[in-house]
Every structure is written in structure tokens, then in C-alpha cells.
């Protein structure tokens, strides 16, 4: 219980720390470490499935509160339709809907489910595969979100630059994952007590 409360505070703190993380520029593309989803995915290694779903809801909601421009989507679609009609007589062209507020929760839950597949490995103390899976899950999380955006807005567009950005963000997450998984496992052991964790022997 205490561990989960600490994890909740940690997720909220990630949102604050995210503000201070710098962007890296690689080949004209900007990328950054997506801290909140990375910590969430790492924490999956220490949670049961039901708890993971709960944390997906909290993390996704926090992310959307900070990053989803909820105030503009519906208005923008209407304005774009009017403008298209006014300028080119092509009313209704140009802009569909947008991802609904809170949609990130679903993507977090899906990415968490993917990550949950390697939880036994992490519980055995092996961190290489779970860390790689954090990167894969991060990439799937971003692409899934962008493909859903395509679905809602209409048309299909997946620029190569964006794909590169997603890969760099996922790579940054992978690099941060191993120490995070170890740290979270240790925190879990410390806060829950060794009795709850029969197998925490890190491989040499």
C-alpha cells in the first residue's frame, strides 16, 4: 500500500521533472526522454495487472491534463470547416476530429499490457529484456497514439521525421529503464518487506 502511494507521488513528480528535461537535437529532429510513461512502464515490473491498469489511468490522465490541448480540438475543427468553405468553397474539407481527452489512458493500458509480458523476467532480477521492452512499449505507445490521430483526423500521414523522433524518444527511455527498474524493485522490496518478494536476486 505504501509502495503504491509512493509510486503515485513518483508519477506526479515525473510530470514536474519532465518540464526540466532538455531536448536533444539529432539530425534536425528534436527528441526527449518521456519520463512519465517510462517510469510507468518500468513500474509495471513491480505491479499486479489490476494495479497496473489503475496506474495507467492515473498516468494517462495526468499526461492528458498537461499535454493534450483539450480546449482547441472541437473549435479548431469547426473553424477549419468554415474557413475552407469561405476560401475555397470546400466546406467540410480539411480537418476531422481529434483524440478525445483521456485517450492516453487506453494507450498506457495497452503499452502496460505489452510490458506485463516480461514482468516475470524482471521479477527474476533480469533487467536487459525488460529495459528493451520498455523501449518497444514506448515506441508502440507513441505510434499507436499517432495512428489513432490519423484515424480521427482523416487521411494517413506518418512523416519519416516523426518516426525518427519516436525512435529517439524510445531509445532514451530504454537507456533510462534499467536503473529505473532496479530502483523500483529495490523500493518495492524496502517498502513491502522481503516477505512479499521471493525472488529478488539480481543476476551477475
Amino acid at each position, binding site marked *: 500500500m505504501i509502495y503504491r502511494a509512493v509510486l503515485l507521488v513518483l508519477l506526479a513528480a515525473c510530470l514536474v521533472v519532465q518540464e526540466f528535461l532538455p531536448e536533444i537535437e539529432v539530425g*534536425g529532429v528534436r527528441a526527449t526522454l518521456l519520463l512519465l510513461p517510462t517510469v510507468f512502464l518500468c513500474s509495471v515490473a513491480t505491479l499486479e*495487472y489490476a494495479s497496473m491498469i489503475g496506474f495507467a489511468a492515473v498516468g494517462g490522465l495526468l499526461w492528458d491534463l498537461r499535454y493534450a490541448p*483539450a*480546449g482547441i480540438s472541437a473549435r479548431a475543427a469547426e473553424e477549419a470547416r468554415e474557413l*475552407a468553405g469561405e476560401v475555397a468553397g470546400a466546406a467540410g474539407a480539411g480537418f476531422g476530429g481529434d483524440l478525445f481527452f483521456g485517450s492516453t489512458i487506453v494507450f498506457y493500458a495497452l503499452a502496460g499490457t505489452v510490458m506485463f509480458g516480461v514482468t516475470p523476467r524482471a521479477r527474476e532480477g533480469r533487467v536487459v529484456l525488460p529495459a528493451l521492452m520498455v523501449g518497444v512499449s514506448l515506441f508502440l505507445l507513441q505510434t499507436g497514439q499517432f495512428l489513432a490521430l490519423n484515424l480521427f483526423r482523416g487521411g494517413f500521414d506518418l512523416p519519416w521525421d*516523426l518516426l525518427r523522433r519516436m525512435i529517439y524518444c524510445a531509445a532514451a527511455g530504454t537507456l533510462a529503464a534499467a536503473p529505473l527498474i532496479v530502483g523500483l524493485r529495490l523500493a518495492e522490496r524496502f517498502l513491502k518487506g522481503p516477505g512479499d518478494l521471493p525472488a529478488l536476486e539480481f543476476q551477475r
Partner: protein
Amino acid sequence: MKRASIIALLLLGALTFWLILLPPETAARWQNGFLTWFAPAIRAAGDQPKAIAAASSKEERELRRLRDEVDRLWIERSFLERLREENDQLRRALAFVEQRHHDAIAARVIRRESAGLWSAAFIDKGAEHGLTRDLAVIAPAGVVGKLTDVMPRMSRLLFLTDERCQISARVEGASYEGITRGRRGMAVVHPEVELRFLPPRAGIPEGSLVVTAGLGGVYPEGLVIGITGRFERGETFGSAVVTPAADPALLRTVFVLKPVEPLPGGDVVRADEGREADDP
């Protein structure tokens, strides 16, 4: 599957369904409240490079202030020139046309969005400074975007390079009008925008100036948007790639255009003065 997992999934489904049905205004209100509460973190992060630099001496601050002032005066001058042109046209036509003027409120870009999929930034002016959403934002070089969310002391600015920021535009020296919009998910440092709904055989030469057409009510007419690049022909419409004149990656200070309401006699009054006058 365990019973707890099934219950968790059902609850997640219910939460998602409820959020889908949530009116956008409610979501926007929640987000506005959250961002107001979260603003100190965004401001602190925006001030971080300055703290690191630590070399902002009094003279440097004065120099920055003077530069901002020069930019503001430059924008005001361009507006006055446009007003003069309009005045000349009115004199020639001997007809009254509604006079419209804007106040340019200087604001500092405090934080560029780096983690989301959107092309946006935060500026250090908000509702306390008389800003409202959907106000046009410009820089001396040209159009920057518009305000989407306004908190008490901070606002979110959507760059013109975002897909949802659509501006009616025309090509200077030609009669073609279209709409500019950013490309979906543009992640490059210096993104381009697209001028759409052009006639398929428009044949716009590269390097043509694109300016706002003044339709839609957000952007005044004649503001520079950018320079055209290659032209792409479609079956129904053509489109041209436009390099924005104001590069979002380099912006430090921007100007929010606050409309000044016209009076029947042709005089102008500031929007906030008008509201004050209405109060008993």
C-alpha cells in the same frame, strides 16, 4: 485471468467511455484549472536557462527591453502604414469602411512543448493582462500562431506549424487565396506549412510572399506568413509548401494582437476600456 484484473479492465472501460462522452468544454476547464495550478513548474523550467546563464546584468536586461520595444514599435509602424494605405483608399473611394486597429502586447516565450505531439509553447501573459483565447500572435518577422488556452498569468500558444492552426492566406501579387496549415506530427526543428486550396494550375513561383487574407476573424489582413517553396498539383486543388517567416524554434519575444473595438464615429477604443465603461 484473475477477478481483480477483470474488474480493473471493466472499470477502465467505463472510465474511457465516460471520458469519450465528456463535453470538450468540461475537459478544457479541467485542463485550464490543472495548468493554472501547474504553472509555477512550467515557469520555473522556462526560467532555468536564464538561471544557468546568470549573466543577465542590468545592461543586458536593458538591452533586451529596448530590443522588445523596437520590435513592438516596428509592428505598430507596420500597422500604421496599413492604416495609411486604407485611409488613402477610403479617401479615393469616398466611402466609409470600418476602421480596425490592434494593440500589440509583448510576451515572452517561456516554454516550448517538447513531449507532446503538438506544436505549441507557453507565453508569460494571460487573462490578467487582458488576453483571451483565439488572439493572433505575431513576431516582427511574421505570423507565429494563436492563443488556445489562457490561464491567469500564462497562455498556450499554438504555432502556425501545427495542423490545427489554419490561416486564410493569399499570395502577394496574385489573386490566389488558400489556407495554410502545419503538417501532422511535424517533429523537425524548422517545420514548414502547407498552403492548400489553390487552383490546380496556379503555378506559383518559388519565393512568392504569402500573407494573411483576413478571413476567419483571427488574423488581420496583410501579415506576412512566409515564402513559398515547391508547388504541388492535385486533381481538385493545388498546394504550395511555405517556409514560415517567423521560425518557432528561434522565438523569444512575441506580440499578441488585441483588437481595439471601433466606435460608430470611426474613433477606436480599447477592448478592456469598453468593458470598463459598461460596468456600473
